[in-house]
C-alpha cells in the first residue's frame, strides 16, 4: 500500500546509491521534481533507465549521478541534441557513461516482460541492424511451433521506478490520463515505486484514456504540484516548449550548465523553490 509522504523522505528511503532507477513518462508527465531531489541528495553510481532520456537525464548525467544509461532515443525532442549526454558519451565528462541502447519497441517490451515477471520478451526487430553488435542484450529466438526466428530482449526490473501522475486519492491509488506511454509497465516492473502527483483528491473523475495504478502497486505518493515541469500534465499545464528550446544553449556549455544547476536545483530546498527561482531569473536567463 502506498504511503502518502514527502518527496524528500521518499527519495531518501527508497533510492540508494548504485540502484537501477527508471524515471519514465513519454514526453508527458516526466518526473522532473523527483529527478532534482535525487540530484540534491547526491545519489551516485545510478544505472538510469528511460526510453527517452530527455532533459531530465541530461541534467542527472551532467551532475554525475549516473554510471550507466539504458535508453532508446537520447535527444531534446524537436530541438536537437542532449549536450550533457553527448559530452558524457563523447568525452567522458563529468564521468564516463556506459550505455546500453535499444529501440523503442525493444525497451517497451523489456518493461512489459519485467512487469510480467518473465525473463525476456519477443519482438520483430533488430535483425540486419548494427544494434546487436554493440548491445549484448539482444538474442535470436526461434518459435517452437513455426521455427521462425525472432528477437529476444531481457526483462527490465529496475530497483526503483519513478513516475509523475495527475492525481492520487487518499488511499494512494494513482490516476493518469492523456498520453500514458510506458508508465504503467515501468512502475509494475520495478521493486519499489515512487509517484509524484499534481494533487491528492478525495475521488477521481472520469477520463476515457485514464488508467489507475492501484495503491498496492505503489510505495510512496508525493504531492508535488507542477512536478513534471517543463514537460506537461494533461489537464493541468502545457509543455513549456520554450524551456526545451532555451535549454539548448545552457546544456551546451559545461559552466553555464553547472551554474544553472547550482542556482536552480542544488541551491533550492524543493521543487516549488526551483520554479520560483527559474521564474525570478526570467526566460531561463
Amino acid at each position, binding site marked *: 500500500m502506498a504511503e502518502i509522504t514527502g518527496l524528500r523522505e521518499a527519495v531518501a528511503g527508497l533510492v540508494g546509491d548504485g540502484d537501477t532507477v527508471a524515471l519514465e513518462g*513519454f*514526453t*508527458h508527465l516526466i518526473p522532473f521534481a523527483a529527478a532534482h531531489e535525487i540530484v540534491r541528495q547526491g545519489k551516485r553510481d545510478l544505472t538510469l533507465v528511460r*526510453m527517452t532520456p530527455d532533459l531530465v537525464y541530461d541534467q542527472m548525467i551532467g551532475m554525475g549521478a549516473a554510471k550507466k544509461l539504458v*535508453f*532508446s*532515443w*537520447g*535527444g531534446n*525532442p*524537436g*530541438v536537437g*541534441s*542532449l549536450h550533457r*549526454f*553527448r559530452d558524457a*558519451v*563523447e568525452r567522458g565528462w563529468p564521468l564516463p557513461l556506459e550505455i546500453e*541502447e*535499444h*529501440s*523503442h*519497441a525493444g525497451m*517497451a*517490451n523489456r*518493461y*512489459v516482460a519485467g512487469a510480467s515477471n518473465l525473463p525476456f520478451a519477443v*519482438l*520483430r*526487430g533488430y*535483425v*540486419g*541492424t*548494427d*544494434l546487436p553488435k554493440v548491445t549484448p542484450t539482444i538474442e535470436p529466438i526461434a518459435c517452437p511451433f513455426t521455427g*521462425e526466428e525472432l528477437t529476444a530482449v531481457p526483462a527490465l526490473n529496475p530497483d526503483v521506478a519513478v513516475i509523475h501522475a495527475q492525481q492520487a486519492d487518499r488511499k494512494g491509488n494513482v490516476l493518469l490520463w*492523456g*498520453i*500514458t*506511454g*510506458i508508465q*504503467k*509497465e515501468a512502475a509494475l516492473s520495478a521493486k519499489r515505486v515512487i509517484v509524484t502527483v499534481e494533487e491528492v483528491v478525495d475521488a477521481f473523475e472520469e477520463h476515457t*484514456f485514464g488508467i489507475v495504478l492501484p495503491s498496492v502497486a505503489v510505495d510512496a505518493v508525493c504531492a508535488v504540484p507542477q512536478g513534471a515541469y*517543463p514537460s*506537461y500534465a*494533461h489537464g493541468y499545464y*502545457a*509543455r*513549456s*516548449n*520554450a*524551456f*526545451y528550446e*532555451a535549454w539548448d544553449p545552457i546544456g551546451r556549455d559545461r559552466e553555464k550548465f553547472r551554474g544553472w544547476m547550482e542556482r536552480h536545483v542544488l541551491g533550492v530546498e524543493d521543487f516549488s523553490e526551483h*520554479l520560483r527561482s*527559474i521564474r525570478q531569473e*526570467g*526566460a*531561463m536567463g
Partner: protein
Amino acid sequence: MTEGEGRGYTADEMMTVAASRRLGDGTVCFVGIGIPSQAANLARLTHAPGCVLIYESGTIGAKPEVLPLSIGDGELAEHADSVVSVPEIFNYWLQAGRVDVGFLGAAQIDRFGNLNTTVVGSYEEPKVRLPGAGGAPEIAASAKEVFVVLRQSRRAFVEKLAFVTSVGHAEGGDSREGLGYTGGGPSVVITDLGILEPDPETRELTLVALHPGSTVEEAREATGWDLKVAENLGTTEPPGEGELRVLRDLKERTAAARKEKVG
C-alpha cells in the same frame, strides 16, 4: 537550406509538399517529428482528410491544430480517436502490420535506403553521438512502406553508413526478404533536390524526379555514391498556392502557439 529563389517557395517547402502528396487518403501513417509531421498534417489538411496519423506516443488518429514539438505533446491526445500505451502502439499497431506508411528522417542514408541515426565515427569513440534508434528500426521493419525525407548532401547520402540503425533494402536485390520482416521497406526518398525510388530489381535508390530548378549535376554532387538516374527523369509539380497557404498557416499557428513565455 537551398532557397527556391524567385520561385516563391523554399526547397524545404518543396520537399514537404512533395512528401505530403505521396500520402493517399485513408492511409494509416506512422509519423515522426519534423518534416514528416509537417508533411503528414499538410496531407490531412488538403487532399487526404481521411489519413489516420499515428504518433509513437500512442495517439491514433491524431488531428493536431498546431505542429507538435515533441512526439507526445498534449495536442496529439486532445483530438485523437484513441490513445493507447507505448507497448500497444508498437506491438498491436506497428508490428501487427496496421501501418501503411512509416515516415522517417535520418542523419545518413546509403544507396539501399538503410538509415543511420545512432552515431557518426566509431561507436566506441564517436565523433557525433546522435539520438539513437527510437521507433525507427521497427517502423522500417514493419510499416508496409517507408517514406524517407531528408536533405540531400554528401554528409547524409553516404557510400557506407557509420552505423545501420534501421534496415532499408539491406544489401539490395531480395536481401531484405531474408530478414523476415513483414514491411516492404523504403518506397521513396524525398529530398530538397528531387525524388529517389528503389530500382525494382537491384533496389538501389534511383533519381526519378527533380524539383523545379534542381539539376542532375546538383543531385550527383550531393550524393556520396555514383547516383543512378532514371531514363525518364520527371520534374516535380511545384507547390500549389493552396498547398503553400495551408502549410504556411500551419507553421504560423504553430509559431504563435509556441510564443508562450518560459517559466
